[in-house]
């Protein structure tokens, strides 16, 4: 990795585990290349800490190419830092100036408890998906591909919604810690496709119920989620979910009374 000449001061949240109180710790990142990603800068800092026999900073990462959604970091007051449309692993140090002080915090939400330092527990998202973010299919021989016709506009819209990587930046950005953008992306993706029709009503009811039970806040349409989403998931999905929810409630009452 090319060595560079950027020197930065980091103020990073350190927290031992779920049950302890955390605090900010100051670190100095020296000789950072502007071509490094934000996570590579953390790698350099951590290697230095290890050689000094100090504890490295815990943070989540996996793919490092913007597709897994693991790299949750709230950087200088914004999820995934100052650039739009990217995850932390895609953020480069050239977006900062040498001498900058950078404050790095974990996602803050009752539904995302801190596991350690910058790593948070996002299994609440998994439980929302398990509540309804799936389709039922028959087992047996594989069907021919493309034998279900799909309207092109619907396919495109579903594809846009399916771009959501479940990173949780929408929750982190929202002043209400609302998970509406994430849940609406998942509801929309399946509601728009023929394969998703059978569970359509149960899906939205169950996923919203789970979302509420996990302790996420209520949406007030401020739109911070859309602005900060690395995959530019649109607020239109939230409106669609509100429609899906209303019609599911009506349909449910029709069947049960």
């Amino acid at each position: 990795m090319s060595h560079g000449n950027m020197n930065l001061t980091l103020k990073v949240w350190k927290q031992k585990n779920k049950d302890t109180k955390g605090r900010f710790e100051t670190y100095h990142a020296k000789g950072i290349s502007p071509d490094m990603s934000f996570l590579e800068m953390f790698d350099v800092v951590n290697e230095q800490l290890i050689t000094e026999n100090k504890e490295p900073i815990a943070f989540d990462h996996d793919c490092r190419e913007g597709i897994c959604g693991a790299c949750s970091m709230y950087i200088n007051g914004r999820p995934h830092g100052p650039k739009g449309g990217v995850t932390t692993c895609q953020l480069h140090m050239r977006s900062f100036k040498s001498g900058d002080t950078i404050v790095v915090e974990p996602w803050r939400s009752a539904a995302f408890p801190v596991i350690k330092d910058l790593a948070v527990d996002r299994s609440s998202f998994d439980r929302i998906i398990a509540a309804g973010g799936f389709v039922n299919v028959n087992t047996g021989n594989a069907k021919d591909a493309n034998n279900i016709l799909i309207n092109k506009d619907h396919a495109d819209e579903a594809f846009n919604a399916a771009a959501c990587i479940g990173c949780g930046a929408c929750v982190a950005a929202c002043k209400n810690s609302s998970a509406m953008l994430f849940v609406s992306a998942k509801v929309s993706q399946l509601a728009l496709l023929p394969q998703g029709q059978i569970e359509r009503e149960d899906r939205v009811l169950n996923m919203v119920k789970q979302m509420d039970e996990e302790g996420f806040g209520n949406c007030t349409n401020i739109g911070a989620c859309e602005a900060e989403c690395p995959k530019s998931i649109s607020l239109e999905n939230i409106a669609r979910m509100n429609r899906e929810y209303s019609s599911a409630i009506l349909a449910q009452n029709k069947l049960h009374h």
Partner: protein
Amino acid sequence: MTKSGFVTSSIGKKILMGITGLFLISFLLIHCFINALIFFNDGGETFNKGAEFMGTNWLIRAMEIVLFIGIFAHIFLALKLTIDNRKARPVGYMVVNGSANSTWYSRWMGLLGTLILMFLVIHLKHFWVVSRFTDEITSGKETMFDEMREVFENPIVVAVYCLSMVSLAYHLLHGFQSSFQSLGLNHKKYTPIIKSIGIIFAILIPLIFASMPIVMHFGIIK
């Protein structure tokens, strides 16, 4: 199938918020129209007729009850939402760069609403209490227009009314378009139109309202 409570669900609350918000907007429109009758500048003659119609027509009186229920529901839901949303982030951030992703007034709807509520209490005391619970107006001693002139003699009252209209304007600047989104009414073609109408409404209506105490105070309308 799971039975879910509509009213207690996050989306149910949002939809009710949107409905009550739009209902309050429709009230503002009618209220503004009736009050603007003072601009005929005929010593309040037309305005007094309008006020009397609003005070005596049975349909309007029935709607008044609905209006109070609507305001109460809006405030109750707003409080519930605001408190729940606080709980959803027990540990806050040290640095928040909110202006990077949203407007300040969309983030401060609770505060703007509370300012409007404080204004509503003062405003109801000035006019509604006097016309309904005293015999000032019904006895013919005074007209609604006289009452208005009296209230707006005080420059502090005029200032409070004007500042409150600024709060209302910002509340509507976010609220108007937000209520459509809450109801799921988002459309490629119509949403930009709704947003434009919302901006015009949010500026124009409070501006007309704010001009009333000013013209009455300075005797431009008499």
